[in-house]
Structures are given as C-alpha cells and as structure tokens.
C-alpha cells in the first residue's frame, strides 16, 4: 500500500503548481484552471485522510467542494466571457479599470 506521506506530497505539489499558475499566468482561463488544480489538491488530501482514518466525513466534504467548484467555474467562465467581449483580451495585467 502507498504510504500516506506520498499522497500528501503529491497533493502539495499539485497545490503549488496551482498557486504558481494563478500568480504568473497571463490568461484568465488558465488562471481559472489553476484554481481548479488547487481545489483538487485539497480534495485529494481530504480523500486520503478519509481513507486512512476510516471516516466518511472527508468524502462528504469533497462532494461539497466539487459542487461549489462547478458553480464557481460556471460563474467564473461567464465573467471571463463578458470581460472578453468588452476588452478583446484575457490578460489580467490589462484589467486595471478601478485604478485611477
């Protein structure tokens, strides 16, 4: 059986990839995907602990997270489409409308 630490290290790696993606990518869609990566890294941690501790609560929370992530993706993509229609760009560094 694969030990617990391996799962956690994998989860941390995936999470870090997500964080770096959010911070440095210049495309909103990729940033949104990076956020999904971070969410799923957390989901992985939940599942692993659920399995190792023999408790179902972690899995229940994962279903919640997936439901919320689906909703978030819908809203996020809708906003991105709306922004693209106005600005013809998806580069977040160009989106500084509130800055005077």
């Amino acid at each position, binding site marked *: 059986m694969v030990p617990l630490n391996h799962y956690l290290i994998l989860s941390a790696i995936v999470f870090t990839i997500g*964080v770096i993606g*959010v*911070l*440095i990518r210049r495309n909103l869609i990729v940033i949104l995907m990076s956020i999904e990566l971070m969410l799923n890294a957390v989901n992985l941690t939940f599942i692993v602990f659920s399995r190792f501790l023999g408790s179902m609560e972690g899995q229940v929370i994962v279903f919640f997270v997936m439901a919320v992530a689906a909703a978030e993706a819908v809203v996020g993509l809708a906003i991105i489409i709306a922004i693209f229609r106005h600005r013809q760009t998806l580069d*977040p*560094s160009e*989106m*500084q409308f509130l*800055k005077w």
Partner: protein
Amino acid sequence: MVAATQSPVTLDLLRWIPLIPLLTSVFNVFFGARLGKKGAGVLACVAVGASFAIALYVFWLLPAAGIFRDTLYTWIESGSFQVQLSFQVDDLTAVMLLVVTGIGFLIHIYSLGYMAHDEGMARFFVYLNLFIFFMLVLVMADNLLALFVGWEGVGLCSYLLISFWYEEPLNVIAGNKAFVVNRIGDFGFTLAIFLIVSELGRQGIWTLNFMELQKHVGLLSPGKITLITLLLFVGATGKSAQIPLFVWLPDAMAGPTPVSALIHAATMVTAGVYMAARLHFLFSLAPDTMSLIATIGAATAFFAGSIAIAQNDIKKVLAYSTVSQLGYMFLAVGVGAFSAAIFHVFTHAFFKACLFLGAGSVIHALGGEQDMRKMGGLKSYLPKTYWTYLIAAVAISGVPFTAGFFSKDLILWQAYNNPQSGPILWAVGWFTAGLTAFYMFRQLLLVFHGECRADEHVKAHIHESPPVMTIPLMILALGSIFAGWLGAPEYLWGSVWERRFEQMFGVHGEHLGSLTTEISLMLVTLAIVGLGILLAYVSYGRGVRLPERLSSLAGGGLYRLLLNKYYVDELYDFFIVRPFTAVSRFLAQVFDPWVIDGAVNGIAASARGVSFLWRGVQSGNVQHYLVGFLAGTLALLAYYLGQQ
C-alpha cells in the same frame, strides 16, 4: 427683606399682552405693503392699544391676586434643570407693563403722523411692534433666561431702528456701534447667568426662576454674589448707557425721533434698572457692587449732564440728558432705593418721551433741521408743541409739584441717607439737578424763544404738527406733572408708590434724617434748580445769544472739552477701536493666510505626499494583490507553526 412667598395665580390672558404685537408685526411683514402705509400703521397702533387695555385690566385685577402667572410650555429640560417659558406679573412688572404699552401706544399714534411721508412706514411699524413684543417679554419673564431673550431682542430692534434710514452710511455706523457696545455688556450678562447656574447647580438647585433664586440666594457665597452682580451690572451699563459703555446712546439719535422717544428714552434703556430691581435680592447682598453702582450712577449723571449743556443738536442734548437721568436711576439702585429707581423710570418715561416727541415735532416742522442754532422763536409757530415742551422741561428740571420733582428728590434724599456714600453722592446729584435745569432751559430758550434763525424758505413752511402728533404730546405733558404725585414725600400727602412696593423691596430708608433735614435738602435742591434756570435765562434769554456767550464765560478750553463730549469717543477710538482693528488686520492679513491656512494646507499637503508614496502598492493588477495575499498567508502559517 424676603417677600412673603405668594403663590402665583394662573391667568391665561397674560400671554396675549406680548403676543398681539408679535402677531401684528408678523402680519405686517407679509401684508403690510398690501395694507398700505396707513393701514399697517393703524393696525400696529390698535395692537399696542389692545395690549395696553389688557395690561390695564391685569393691573386692576392684580391687588387681589398678588402675582399672576401664565405658563406656556417647558422651554428647556435637561436633567433637573428646567426653564419654563412663562409670563409673570407682579407689581414691578405691572408698572413696567403700563409704561411700555401705555407710552408705547402714544408713541405709535404719534408715529402715524411723524412717519406719514416716509416710504418705509410699514417696515417701521413692523420693527416698532417687534420691539414692544421683546420689551414685554423682558419685563414679563419669570426667569433670567427669558429675560435675556427679551434683552437681546430689544437690542436687535434698537439696532434695526437706529439704522432705519439705511441709505445714510452714518446711520448704519451708529446702529452697528449700538449693537457692538451692547454686546460688550451682554457678555457680562451671559457670564453672570452661567455663574448662577453653575454655582447653584453645584449645590443641587437647578433653576433660573426669579422666585426660586430668591428662595435659594442664601446658598451663594458673598464673593460669588459680588462677582455675579458685578457681571450683571456690566450688562446694565451696556443696555442703560452708563459709564463706560454710554457712548452708543447719543449716536443712536440717528434713528427716527419716535424711536428715540420709545426705545432710547422711555423703555429699553431702563431695562438695566428693571433688571437690577428684579434681582434686588442679589444686589442688596453685595454691598461692594452697590457702592460701585451708586458711584457710577452719580458720575454718569454729572458727566452726561455737563456734556448736555454744550451740545447744539436738539436731540443730542436730550440724549445726554437721558444718560444723565439714567445715572440718577442707578444712583438710586446703588443706595438700595429700588422703588425710587423704578419711580424715576416711571416719571422719566413721561417727560422724556414728551421732550423727544416735542423735539420730533420741531424737527418735523423745520423739515429735518436738528441744529438749535438755526431755530429760535418757534413759540408762536408751534404753540401746542411749545407748551407741552415747556411742561416737560419744567418736570425734568424738578420744579415743585411736577413728576421730576418728586422722583428726583426721592432719589437725592435716599442717597443722602445712605451711610456708605452719604453726602458726597448727594452733592453730585444735587449739582447735576442744577445742570439739568440749565441745559433744559437753554434748549427751550434756543428753540422756542428769541428770533427765528431759520432760512427764509424753511421759515415759510413752518407749521404746527397735526393732532395725531400733538394729542400724544398733551397726554404725556399731563403725565409729566401728575405721574409724580403717586410718590409724594411724607411731608406732603405720602407715597402711594412706596406703600405698594414695600412688600417687594422691603421697607427702605429707615428715615435716618429728620423731616426738617428732608425739607431743607429739598429747598437746597430747589435753589440750585432755580439758579440753573436763571443762568440759562441770563445767557440765552433776551435776544439772540449764541452758545459762544457760554464759551467765553467758561473759558474756551472747558467749552471745547464739553462740546467734544470730553473726547470720550476719540479716547475709545485711540485706545480700544484702533488697537483692536490693528490686531484684527494682523490676524486677517498675516495670521490667517500664513499660520491658519498654512497649517490646514500643510496637513492636506502632507497627507497627499504620504498617499503618493503608498499608491504604488495599489497597482490595480489582481495578481500583484494575490502575491501579497500569499505572502500574508505564509507568514501567518510560519508564525503558528513556529509557536508549536
């Protein structure tokens, strides 16, 4: 000393005495122009007449009740501190009420004639009615704060009416001067009110009601009472034109003559005396203040009287005469003879109003001329004015069996009997009586006797005033004689007045001197009055004797000193007004733009500078913010992990 604490009887009628003039005033503001000059004027007269009628009715009811009160509503309520807006009438208020509404009514009627040719007649009556309202609030207030409202209100109306002809810049300056000088006095008055509230409040008595104050006056320490009364007296010197704040009253003659008669002779300027009498229980506990008041009163009486003998403007003479007579009233207050002071207020209202209205009639006849050097011989042109003027002049001079004789002798007698000041103050008052007789008869002779010195075309238009002006004059002239008979001394038929006020002010003047002293003092006073009249007749009586005669008689320097009013205005200008304006100019032109604006702008500029530094942090780029977010999270994480 403490009056029997009568419980006031409620009488809802009282509120209408001040309210009727107020309502008419407001009505005339909006509809006066539509009513026309005459309509507005008649309406105003009817209003004051109605107030007078109610006041008479209340006066008739008063002996049975003792004190009437009419509470409108609670004005201020803060914890246990309460100020009611309520009107109260006792004997003292009743006298003032009759003077204000009665004399006010006559002067209103007179104004119908005097102001008939003026465009602003409706406005004039709006102010005049408003004045009557505030004056009635002043005398009917049952607490110090409501009195102060009336006190300020009459000051406002005085200002409005002095600068009534506002096209003339001098009138506006005179109005401003009156307002500013009064403000100096009011400063003392407000401080006194604060002091009373805080001193009594500290001991659990939160009140400004006169009856309550009188009940609890024992709680105040003597030092505090002296301070309070001194501050109140500062207020009184402003309103009642005493040294050192008398300078506004002569300039106030810039207003229409009925205003001078009503506000600056008969009613408003006596408010200080009324206030002292109303708070007699405070003043009589402060002997130091009292002797100061007596001294200032006597000094003012003499000082103003001596200025009056050298003035050439018909109204200026009367103005200084008013200041002088107010000095007599404060002399009476200072020796504790409150009823004598109010008695002089009462008699003075008649003869001084009569003199002012007579002067107004003369000015009216001469088409606005006020210089007595261009008058003379008007006796045959204006017989009614002349005779009423003569009666009033005789009354103010103190010729026996006229009003001024009784009230002035009463004051002098009380001053003589005062153990503290005694004969010195009496002597000053005595000499001033001679001055009074001299300047009044000088004026009478200059204006009505001798040859007419007016220009030919002015002469052609001289006419006696219409009955609407002469009838008030005659009524006032009658009052100038008979008003004094209420307060005759014991050696004649005794004083109704004194008996009426015994209960309020306590039995005063334990008659230290004997009857023979009193009569001989009276004769000595008569002698100097006679001398004054004689001197006036010798100087100005036969033929035309211009004032130069007096100037050579008294030595040129003294005459110039008197003519220029002892240079008081110039002294004030040099020592107070100019340093004050210099400081103001410095503040306005240097301190304000550099220091105040500099500080304000400096704070604004430094805030902008700091913001400019920090605005770099807010790039507007979401990813930059997220870096900060991440850094913060990591720092928190490191912190909590480090703790374990």
